[in-house]
């Protein structure tokens, strides 16, 4: 024995005398396996490994993750796109979650087929059932955390389902959400459950599960012929466990590399996102289609209650010593029915989505949007005010419908944008004066072009404006702290009248119900723009192409009478910020 090895042995002895590690190691490795090592037994160890992977990767994700609706998505995007090794660790966590659900089902199936819940193993089995529920709880709470479209809408549907349960539903939904709506409070709650409560519960129950297992001993094969042969856990079973775990680990690494964990654009509650749950909740999702209205309680409450009731009661109901699955036809049939049913429902829901052209197109589009988002480079989120606190303080924001606003539309909007947030040529004017500590005098001089070299910038000199007009504009610019359109639409609520029916029928789909803009641009203040006087607009409606408007603006409006057109144009003119 080398000097190093003997020194190592001494350290081991020192530790052993105090901590008893040798006995602990021996009792772990020498666990007797009745009937010898088998590949069928690898799932338990694999689940312990996967839980460890989830715990380690989860803790690491928490280094950068922020559980707030404002920042969650940005922080996950940062992990996924910018942090070295971030995509890999998040991929392990993401696919590890799915792997855990699969292996839990495999573990339960093996235990069930082998009748390994029999023989004073009721507690062991029941604790295992609770662990299964906890794993699903992890999946449900973790789904929301990235705060992307899928997370938001998936959880919205999930919590709504919970809310439909009679009696306890509405209250439990409120408690889950932390209120009536899915907000940042919901995110905090799900985060707390996902990283504090559930891991603690699962960790403790896992210890109990293993303790109960070691106390009861391995059940061994269901046929009793070589029951007398007993192998130790080390080396053969540990070898088989390690090989299987290694295959799972490599698969997770490979998946994380080849198909990076999904992350779509940030949650947008106003979008018409087509929500689909994670694959392991698809059976429930599919069943909901067959049980509309009040009947939906069957898949959401009755069926899970029956299923888990059966699981929990199984070792108490099935008291026979017989463990061979062939000689337990009812039990085996129930298992096969449940498994094929679940898989069948998953396949069916996927198939139905694919067969429906509307759904498949929408899902494909969403998928492409998510992929495109993943491909774009990481953009840090802009935080905090960008205006110095020593900048000139102003009392009021820009007032809608004021004289300066008219001057703005007539002179500035073409370059600086109708909402003053910047156009093709001119920069945004919002907060510009405050951000740059510009004074009233400076602005009036700048507008007129005094002290500005003509070649220094492309902005025209507005000498045609009177001293007074420039003053008003400068004053207005000093106060301008939000887009003009916003101010305009605020004024709009104070009586421009309802849009004419002809507008609602022909224009609102694209330009918004109150012309605030949607697919088509906002039409608020349109009559202040060049070539868009009331007369121009009447001509435009006869032939939009002549005004340079392209598809999707229709080439003509045959359904509109001259009176309709006049009503629309007059209403649009009233929308002009006065």
């Amino acid at each position, binding site marked *: 024995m080398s000097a190093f090895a003997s020194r190592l042995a001494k350290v081991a002895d020192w530790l052993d005398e105090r901590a008893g590690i040798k006995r602990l190691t021996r009792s772990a490795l020498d666990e007797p396996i009745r009937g010898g090592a088998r590949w069928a037994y690898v799932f338990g160890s694999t689940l312990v490994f996967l839980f460890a992977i989830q715990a380690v990767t989860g803790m690491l994700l928490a280094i950068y993750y922020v559980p707030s609706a404002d920042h969650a998505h940005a*922080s996950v995007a940062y992990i996924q796109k910018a942090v070295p090794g971030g995509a890999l660790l998040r991929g392990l966590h993401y696919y590890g979650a799915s792997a855990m659900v699969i292996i839990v089902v495999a573990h339960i199936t093996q235990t069930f087929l082998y009748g390994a819940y029999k*023989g004073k193993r009721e507690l062991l089995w029941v604790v295992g059932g609770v662990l299964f529920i906890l794993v699903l709880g992890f999946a449900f709470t973790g789904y929301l955390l990235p705060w992307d479209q899928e997370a938001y809408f998936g959880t919205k549907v999930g919590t709504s389902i919970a809310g439909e349960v009679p009696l306890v539903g509405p209250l439990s939904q409120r408690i889950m959400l932390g209120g009536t709506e899915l907000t940042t409070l919901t995110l905090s709650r799900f985060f707390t459950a996902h990283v504090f409560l559930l891991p603690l519960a699962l960790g403790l129950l896992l210890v109990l599960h293993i303790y109960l297992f070691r106390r009861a001993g391995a059940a061994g094969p269901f046929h009793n012929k070589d029951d007398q042969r007993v192998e130790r856990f080390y080396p053969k079973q540990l070898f088989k466990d390690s090989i299987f*775990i290694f295959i799972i680990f490599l698969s997770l690494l490979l998946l994380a590399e080849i198909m990076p964990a999904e992350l779509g654009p940030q949650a947008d509650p106003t979008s018409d996102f087509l929500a689909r749950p994670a694959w392991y909740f698809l059976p429930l999702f599919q069943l909901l289609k067959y049980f509309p209205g009040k009947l939906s309680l069957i898949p959401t409450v009755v069926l899970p209650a029956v299923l888990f009731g059966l699981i929990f009661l199984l070792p108490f109901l099935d008291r026979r010593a017989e463990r061979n699955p062939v000689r337990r036809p009812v039990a085996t049939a129930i298992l096969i029915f449940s498994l094929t049913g679940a898989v069948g429902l998953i396949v069916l829901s996927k198939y139905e989505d694919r067969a429906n052209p509307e759904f498949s197109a929408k899902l494909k589009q969403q998928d492409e949007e998510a992929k495109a988002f993943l491909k774009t480079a990481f953009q840090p989120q802009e935080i905090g005010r960008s205006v110095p606190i020593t900048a000139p303080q102003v009392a009021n924001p820009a007032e809608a419908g004021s004289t300066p606003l008219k001057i703005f539309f007539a002179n500035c909007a073409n370059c600086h944008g109708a909402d003053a947030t910047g156009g093709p040529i001119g920069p945004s004017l919002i907060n510009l004066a405050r951000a740059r500590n510009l004074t009233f005098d400076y602005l009036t001089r700048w507008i007129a072009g005094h002290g500005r070299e003509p070649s220094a910038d492309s902005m025209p000199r507005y000498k045609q404006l009177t001293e007074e007009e420039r003053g008003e504009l400068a004053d207005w610019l000093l106060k301008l702290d939000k887009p003009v359109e916003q101010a305009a639409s605020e004024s709009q609520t104070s009586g421009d009248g309802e849009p004419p029916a002809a507008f609602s029928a022909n224009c609102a789909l694209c330009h918004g119900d109150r012309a605030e803009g949607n697919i088509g641009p906002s039409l608020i203040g349109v009559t202040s723009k060049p070539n868009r006087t009331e007369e121009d607009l009447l001509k435009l409606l006869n032939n939009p192409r002549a005004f340079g408007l392209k598809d999707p603006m229709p080439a003509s409006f045959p359904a509109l009478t001259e009176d309709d057109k006049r009503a629309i144009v007059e209403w649009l003119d009233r929308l002009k910020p006065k």
Partner: protein
Amino acid sequence: MQPISNSTEVSGEAPASAKRRSFLGVVIGLIWSAVTATLGVTIGRYSIAPALSSTGTSEWADVGLLDEIPEGKPVKRSVVVSQNAGWGRFNSQRLVWVTRKGEQITVFSAACPHLGCTINEAANGFICPCHGSAWNADGEKLGGPTPRGMDVLEHRVEGDMLKVKYQYFKQGAAQKEQVG
């Protein structure tokens, strides 16, 4: 079914299988070393690399119009400093003191070189309220625990606008030394 006691006869104890046992032990060891190494390297990169990367040098920030810096009397201005910190780009306010002597403009960081308190204006210069360090109007050290004079920041004039490059300096050092 009774738990198996350790006295139960156990197979695989014969000398012939000792070789197989050690082979399996080696494979098991390799597998777990590979798993640990893969995770270890990734975890190291993930948790340490961003901490060592540069926070991004500060860009030129607007202090205000040059015309508005008075002669002789220091003025306190806040500037917006943008800093990359992981998932966000944080705009926060930092204070500077600006003095003017004719054409000579000086911009001082308002952070005390001692322990980072905010430097105030005094009768004929500057003073730090925390530990009583004092400087004259040119930012030269007069007394107190400060290790050096006030930190001068790089500035430039663009058109009418005075701009400053806000930077952080090591506290407690006798010489000005940039950090970050």
